[in-house]
């Protein structure tokens, strides 16, 4: 069993069902990402679900199609970008005169709002990094398996 069997592309049910499902997976991932403050979920879970959408696409339509849709170069940038966003939020709070990752400083008038903004940014960073990491691992494994 290769993770990218070419034959999958010819199976109509798999193709149609996954095409219908993938947008909803992304939508659900975004919900989990941005609703993590209020319900279960957060950046990590959202990142994994988002990556699962990419991986499903890659499984059904082939690794090359996925590579064309999301070039590995961009995913690699995302891997670093997420971590930088997290660290950058921390540095911003330092520059604003507070401790590292003290989000109160982001909105001194309303510390709670600052907290919410900080958590949103930080979770977004986690989400981007996790999505990129999972997708890249899939790229590496499947790219090797194809040979």
């Amino acid at each position, binding site marked *: *069993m290769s993770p990218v069997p070419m034959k999958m592309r*010819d199976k109509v049910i798999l193709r149609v069902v996954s095409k219908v499902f993938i947008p909803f997976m992304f939508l659900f991932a975004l919900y989990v990402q941005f609703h993590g403050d209020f319900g279960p979920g957060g950046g990590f*879970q959202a990142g994994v679900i988002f990556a*699962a959408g990419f991986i499903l696409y890659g499984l059904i339509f082939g690794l090359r199609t996925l590579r064309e849709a999301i070039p590995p170069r961009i995913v690699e940038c995302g891997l670093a970008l997420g*971590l930088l966003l997290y660290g950058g939020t921390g540095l911003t709070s330092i520059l604003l005169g507070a401790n590292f*990752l003290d989000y*109160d400083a982001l909105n001194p008038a309303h510390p709670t709002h600052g907290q*919410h903004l900080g958590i949103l940014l930080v979770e977004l960073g986690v989400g981007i990094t996790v999505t990129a*990491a999972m997708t890249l691992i899939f790229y590496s494994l499947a790219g090797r398996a194809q040979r």
Partner: protein
Amino acid sequence: MLIPIEAILFCFLIVMAVVIAQLEDLFAAAMLTGIFSLLSAGLFTVMDAVDVAFTEAAVGAGVSTVFILGTLSLTTKWEDQQAPRIWPFAAVGIMGAALIYGTLDMPGYGEIHSAPNQHLARQFIEIETQAFLDSHGGGHAEVEHAPAPEEAHTPAGDEHGAAHGSSDAEAASEHRQKAVGLPNIVTSILASYRGYDTFGETAVIFTAAVGVLLLLRTRRREEDAEDEEEAQEHAPSPQAEASP
């Protein structure tokens, strides 16, 4: 009637673990690991650890199964036949016994008088409830009776260092405990109270992905060249080396 759903799920988990250990077909074993993760996700949900359950379902049952299958496609589908060995079994058995012995000291499941439920978790919940009600207006009277903010002041204050930056905030918040004020306390703890830890975890994920890239993506140029050649030959060629 009360269904002992936790016990049932645990029994399923044990059965699943034994079956996975017995199986020689690695493909089936990989699928069963996914089911194992799904069952544990159900167990976590029953135990009110919804965030953990979410992670377990997404990572354990979803993505990691795909990764295991991808790894299988690089090796073989069948486990090597080996004579049963006594020492590894003994090591695992002793380890398991030690773990069970370790749990004897732990407070009972859902024990309200256990240390975490009396101290840290309670502090977090009281501080956060107060902050949430504050930020949404009203509700003061309901929480006023809770003696939490005063008694919780010192330890939580230590974690955050001195109160700074908020000095120019409104007078009311000076007395208020420094808090996040989100309904999901798990997110508050992960991203704010323990933001530094989560930063480290994200860095670990980053490092892991970089490591995988360095190990598995050694021949990038050649691969790209191959891809271009294949693309010229037209995509869905029957030379698919895949066996479903």
